[in-house]
């Protein structure tokens, strides 16, 4: 142990030698996460931009496209995601207050809400597939014509990409739960919990805009 901080008795073991303090290490990790989230927002904004451009070009298609979507299911999913964001925030608080029970319970609740979101989305998708509402060229629904395939191409890309993020989030949340079970994150080194939390809130944030834009056009 030849590094400069070896003599500091208050310095936790998990702080890397190239950081001045644990605070610096934690805030560096968080800053990195924010840079990643910035990239995520810009990456989703391409699809949102396609939405804006096509909606401007085909306003009536958008109005009748929203008729095919069930706003109550979308609204239910919005509430589920908001609840999951709430329990995620409480999970981070559990890590801050060094309470393994609060952390575990809230992580588990977050995973359950995320699963509930997937179930509702599964019913929505399977209902549409049953009707023949597929994206772009595969669109085969009799009830409406014109440029609806474009609306549903954008609908499936936006909600599908969001869904992929939800599934990845469930993976990270389960990993956090597993590590918590093994006794991690109780020593003040909860950057992972905080960063997965930030990711999860971003998934919620994107849905907050997706929901009114797709389901509540009228």
């Amino acid at each position: 142990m030849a590094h400069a901080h070896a003599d500091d008795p208050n310095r936790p073991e998990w702080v890397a030698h190239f950081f001045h303090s644990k605070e610096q290490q934690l805030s560096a990790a968080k800053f990195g996460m924010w840079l990643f989230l910035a990239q995520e927002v810009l990456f989703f904004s391409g699809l949102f931009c396609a939405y804006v451009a096509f909606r401007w070009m085909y306003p009536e298609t958008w109005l009748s496209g929203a008729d095919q979507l069930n706003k109550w299911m979308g609204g239910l999913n919005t509430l589920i995601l908001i609840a999951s964001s709430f329990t995620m925030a409480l999970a981070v608080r559990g890590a801050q207050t060094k309470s393994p029970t609060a952390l575990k319970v809230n992580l588990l609740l977050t995973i359950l809400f995320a699963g509930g979101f997937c179930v509702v989305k599964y019913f929505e998708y399977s209902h549409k597939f049953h009707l023949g509402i597929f994206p772009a060229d595969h669109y085969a629904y009799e009830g409406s014509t014109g440029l609806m395939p474009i609306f549903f191409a954008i609908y499936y890309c936006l909600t599908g990409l969001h869904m992929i993020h939800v599934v990845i989030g469930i993976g990270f949340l389960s990993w956090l739960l597993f590590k918590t079970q093994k006794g991690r994150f109780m020593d003040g080194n909860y950057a992972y919990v905080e960063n997965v939390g930030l990711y999860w809130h971003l998934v919620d944030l994107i849905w907050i805009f997706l929901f009114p834009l797709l389901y509540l056009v009228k």
Partner: protein
Amino acid sequence: MNRNPVHHSAGAAHADGEHHEHIAPLSMYLGVFGALAVLTVVTVGVSELGIPQPYSLILAMIVATMKASLVVTFFMHLLWDDRLNSVVFLGTVIFVAIFFALTMTDLLSRDFLNPEMGNYVMLEEDKARWNECMETKTYDECRDKLPRGWSQANPDAVDGHHGAEGDHGAEGDHGKAEGDHGKADDHGTKSDH
């Protein structure tokens, strides 16, 4: 990140520590959750009122922005974080706005700059003329049946349109508004039968 690295190298990390380990009370999280739930119910309820476009869209976006602000400020801790994280986030929002503004400037000015070209969308009449020509002639012979700008800008896309929407030509007799500036509106509405 440090706003003041010199401070840190001196060994006093209090300012940064306060940022990172702020523990908000449970009641605050509950309040934010309640506000988000209420705003969700409000935005669904407002959509039932039948407020005309574009006001309903503007209203829905205002509510969504309020909800997003609550999530970012409280759930994502930007209120207590190092300001650098807020700068990253707000910078992202600004760049998204630039992205949207430039794209829409392009779309909105196309008709103005090049009236013949329209929005890269073929009108039903053009499509009917094109399909009729292609039944007996080759692609090159039919090129002059395309709207100007289309064949130069996007020759390959024509066949895709032909296949996907070949039977939409029989629209009756509303003639194409030759060269007038109401053309852009036609694109939006006519395609939706």
